[in-house]
């Protein structure tokens, strides 16, 4: 009798285990479903609006067809460039410090600070850039947008650079120092060179991340329906334009918003996938 009860309970436990396996599998499906849903609609709604006009024309007024987002695409690239000028040197060199110099205690605090900064909402960066750049310059500008995005890049790149530099085996540093090469040259010409691909990967991933940011640009770069010839003027950006069009009441603009979204996500995904592909290659090179 006890044996049978024991057996029945055991079967129940196994059944429960099976159910939980199925449940967690279903959950995994649910988690990856949204990507499919979003991509599906993006392609469906955006594909036919992405044409030559889209890439070459400026936005046209309501009612006129054939407008495009050329200035927004260029604007995003310009803002990325400005942001990189701030974010890349500070981030990379800061990462070098964390890896090669510094005491354990001080470095822990810096890393902690960087992680805090990574958690600051992007719109807050917009407010900061507004206060630092827009108010003194008395107007919106590409510079302000670049500052907001650049500040966001710094902690991102700092952490990825540090992680990548830590992966460089210490033997290389030792061998180089034993040749009588000065410390800074060892770091720059040997260590950073060895980790180069990884550093670039980190920079590209950070760039892909901030290329899609809208909130910090709302009141810094502000957006522009025309070409920006002077970086001290407002500038358009792809995510900004998508937002403006999406909340507008016009169908044609909605279509263009979808097109813009498709272009934006392709940009972001291509960088992400490309980078991970590069990374995999690098790992196999070092035999790990």
């Amino acid at each position, binding site marked *: 009798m006890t044996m049978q009860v024991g057996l029945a309970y055991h079967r129940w436990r196994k059944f429960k285990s099976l159910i939980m396996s199925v449940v967690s599998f279903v959950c995994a499906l649910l988690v990856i479903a949204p990507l499919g849903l979003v991509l599906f609609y993006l392609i469906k709604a955006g594909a036919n609006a992405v044409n030559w006009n889209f890439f070459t024309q400026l936005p046209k007024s309501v009612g006129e067809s054939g407008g495009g987002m050329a200035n927004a695409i260029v604007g995003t690239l310009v803002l990325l460039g400005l942001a990189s000028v701030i974010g890349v040197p500070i981030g990379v060199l800061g990462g070098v410090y964390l890896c090669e110099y510094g005491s354990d205690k001080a470095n822990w605090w810096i890393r902690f600070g960087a992680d805090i900064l990574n958690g600051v909402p992007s719109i807050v960066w917009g407010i900061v850039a507004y206060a630092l750049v827009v108010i003194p310059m008395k107007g919106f500008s590409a510079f302000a947008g670049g500052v907001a995005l650049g500040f966001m890049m710094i902690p991102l790149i700092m952490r990825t650079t540090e992680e990548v530099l830590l992966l460089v085996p210490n033997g290389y540093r*030792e*061998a*180089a*120092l*034993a*040749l*009588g*090469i000065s*410390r800074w040259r060892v770091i720059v010409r040997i260590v950073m060179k060895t980790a180069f691909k990884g550093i670039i990967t980190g920079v590209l991933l950070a760039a892909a991340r901030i290329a899609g940011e809208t909130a910090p640009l709302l009141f810094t770069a502000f957006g522009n329906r025309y070409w920006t010839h002077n970086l001290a003027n407002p500038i358009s950006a792809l995510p900004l334009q998508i937002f403006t069009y999406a909340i507008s009441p016009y169908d044609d603009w909605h279509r263009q918003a979808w097109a813009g979204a498709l272009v934006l996500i392709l940009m972001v995904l291509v960088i992400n996938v490309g980078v991970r592909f590069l990374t995999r290659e690098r790992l196999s090179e*070092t035999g790990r």
Partner: protein
Amino acid sequence: MIPHLLEKHRETRAMNSPRPRGSASASNMPEHQGEAPSADKSAPAAFLINRLNAWFGQLQALCDVNLQIPSTAVTAIIGPSGCGKSTFLRCLNRMHELVRGARLEGEVRLFGENIYAPQVDATLIRRRVGMVFQKSNPFPTMTIGENVTVGLRLNGIRSRAVLAERMETALQMAALWDEVKDRLNKPGLSLSGGQQQRLCIARALAVQPDVLLMDEPASALDPIATMKIEELIQQLKKTYTIVIVTHNMQQAARCSDFTAFFYLGRLIELDDTEKMFTNPTNKQTEDYVTGRFG
């Protein structure tokens, strides 16, 4: 004591230039334990080490080490694991201080000058005292040729002619030239383990050091590659002073002219290799070389 080792040792020595040797050997009084045999007093010691103490944080790795290392000869440092051999080696080219928390006291004179004097630049010392490590580590982003000349290039030498000439010389001295002369622009990592180690030796030799330190250079290699390295050492000692750390006593017996035995951070005995392995003065040395411990 170890007849077969001694055979090999005598053979190797006979192949190379006989050195002027005297019959007097170092006394076994502790103060003189580090002196090389008196007949070689005409040659200046490459290193003169006085009262060397080294710490890793609170842990003392070397205690009151005193010895001389003769020039243009091979000195082997032997001893059980943890006896301080590698630490000692790293004190000779100021690599010990690179470890966080490491500390050092005492005097190390390289051809007469104290390398730890306050105004001495460690980087300059490291150019004069080269090092080859246990695990060969050619720089992964560089070709074979670039690996050899990296010490020169990153130290400011730009002239292509000089670099090419030094590269060939260094590779010749490392007995690698013939094997790689046709593929100098292939990646450094494309060589076999033994070749990579010789590449590292070439790399170290290219900056023309006075001394070459070798930290268990063949321990990661197969027997044939090991033999090539040992042959190389015999050639190199005609021009360079070589200090080699090895846990392999047979290797020490084969390769070196002098051997120093370390135990628990102290120098126990320094002697002619032949004497060290046949008739060591110190009981601890005898126990170690006969394999009673370690």
